[in-house]
């Protein structure tokens, strides 16, 4: 289908507006990260700092004992471990469950029950779980965060994947079934690849939710061995001498890994799919 010239111009204009709306606040974050404290309190506002100051980035990559860099880099490591493991487990348990809900009718109340646990404000669950982890010696350990995050991710991974599986026609599965494939083969080789876009979206969603979680991590971790990025950032923001530039720098760097992961995920999933196409 060809587009008219007006339509093309409109599309590009809209894309420009969209890109601006996303980039402008982040660009400001970047400006703050390279501005000195005095530049940041100038009226009228100085949009571009007089003397760009990259020292915060240098500080964030230094590895001295007790430095901001060590706090940041270990938090980055912990966050990656926690988010990736929790997402992997949630997908491994959530995909079969979603498949079950989607292909075998009659167990929907169970799904709703699982979703209700997601509605509970985390504050209410934090203390009892603290007790459990304390007894198990799992406080200040990434394992406890992975366990908790799984339960946060599972309800919606399951639900999202269920709706994804719904859009996969049952006919192609039946064909494979006649050819002698077992259920596991059908699920992994037929259904899952066709629902790849939903899987990608669910995975990314899960990853970012785990990446973002703050309150459990704040209470369950106490040093560089387990603190995740949000907690480390809160540490940087704490106290009575807040360096907004440093927080901005940390914030930007913290957003990079998910952006990269998302970039590759969507490239392989979304574009791969629209090229191949799904005929219903």
């Amino acid at each position: 289908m060809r587009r008219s010239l007006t339509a093309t111009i409109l599309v590009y204009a809209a894309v420009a507006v969209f890109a601006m709306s996303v980039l402008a606040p982040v660009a400001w974050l970047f400006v703050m990260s390279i501005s000195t404290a005095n530049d940041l309190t100038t009226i009228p506002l100085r949009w571009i700092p007089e003397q760009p100051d990259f020292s915060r980035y240098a500080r964030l990559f230094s590895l001295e004992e007790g430095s901001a860099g060590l706090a940041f880099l270990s938090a980055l490591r912990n966050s990656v471990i926690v988010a990736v493991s929790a997402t992997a487990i949630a997908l491994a348990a959530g995909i079969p469950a979603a498949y079950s809900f989607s292909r075998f009718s009659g167990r929907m109340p169970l799904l709703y029950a699982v979703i209700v646990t997601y509605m509970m404000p985390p504050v209410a669950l934090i203390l009892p779980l603290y007790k459990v982890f304390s007894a198990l010696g799992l406080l200040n350990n990434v394992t406890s965060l992975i366990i908790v995050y799984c339960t946060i991710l599972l309800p919606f991974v399951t639900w999202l994947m269920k709706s994804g599986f719904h859009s996969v026609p049952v006919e192609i599965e039946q064909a494979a079934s006649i050819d002698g494939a077992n259920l596991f083969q059908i699920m992994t080789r037929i259904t899952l690849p066709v629902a790849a876009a939903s899987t990608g979206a669910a995975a990314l969603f899960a990853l970012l939710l785990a990446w973002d979680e703050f309150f459990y991590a704040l209470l369950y971790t106490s040093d560089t061995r387990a603190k995740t990025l949000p907690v480390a950032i809160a540490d940087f923001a704490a106290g009575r001498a807040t360096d907004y530039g440093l927080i901005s720098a940390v914030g930007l760097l913290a957003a990079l890994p998910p952006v990269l992961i998302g970039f590759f995920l969507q490239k392989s999933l979304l574009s791969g799919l629209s090229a191949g196409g799904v005929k219903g």
Partner: protein
Amino acid sequence: MNSFFKGAACGLALLIHQSLPAFAEDVTLNAIFMKQAAYSEDDTKAMAKAFEEANPGLKVNLEFVPYEALHDKIVAAQGAGSSGYDVVLFDVIWPPEFATKGFLQDVTARVPKGDRDKVFDGAWTTVDYDGKIWGMPWILDTKYLFYNEDMLKQAGISAPPKTFEELAEQAKIIKDKGIAKYPIVWSWSQAEALICDYTSMVGGAKGSFIQDGKLSFDTGGSVEAVNYMKKTLDDGVTNPNSREYLEEDVRKVFSAGEAAFAMNWTYMFNMANDPKESKVAGKVGIVPAPGFKGKAEASAINGSMGLGISAGSKHPDEAWKFITFMTSQETQNKYAKLSLPIWKSSYEDPAVTKGQEKLIDAAKISLGVMFARPMTPSYPELSSILQKNIQQVLLGQASTDDAMRAATKAAGRLR
């Protein structure tokens, strides 16, 4: 038979293990501190290291959290029944709650009798509750009135204000001369910071939070304080953005040279004098917060913090040793550039006063008149009530009388 032996062996091993600490030297103390400017993380670590060197066999495991998380982490660790922390840093407003709910150990018997007089009375109120002592004061802090010396000179004002009335008058002059659009900046956001400024004013009006044995906020000093706050807003001498500001915002506005007066904690003195952080370095004046005319010459809020032994600690003696070291005059004098000592005689020590004479002069007065926020186990809730009602006045949503009456009524219902 076999399992019996196993059990017996286990029991024996356990017995030996449990009796070991009595002989073994190594004890590790877990301590929770906060990330902040007064006694930075590095300094606290250095102090702990000096302690470990002086006490072989004792190790201190330090954890630093933001102030906002300090209370939550202490109660979570204790409430969950884990042994958790041995030494905890607590804010002046927590001892009533921590004492009545069993989070802290009573250390009255541990404090040497002679120390009582050597430390500021105001500092002791940080750790006193119900006639008992719950720790040692460590960070001694109060809010001062900072002023921009250049702006005052430019306005032809020879001396900083001694009363809140004078403060408003001077600010009016500065505003009328066009030197600053909004001469005074405060931290009146919906937060504890608002209550600190308010309490300081109530102290400056010689008011009281207790009337006939009950919490009361709708008479005398309280009403005078809130009326004053509202009036400076209406007159345009207080920066209206104060209603969304915290201490850090106040520091930024003052350091940018946009306010002639600012109320803030000790830490701002050195930071506003740092050319990297401030455009008014070298022009920063500091005096005690004023009082109300005819009532007081100065006012101050007790914003100190103390170190205590948590109720669940299995090593209270070692914990106390550590607290004694951290709060000792020697340690405190060494780090006096960041936080002033609790010991009276330190203020005559040139090593402490050098380079911060202006601050010390103000501190000598302020520390003597430190006024405490209401002492009640349900203080956190009371603070929320006051924050909301005072803010309603400042935003013009309610009259002082109505709002403070509502606050008193709500305080009476506290469970």
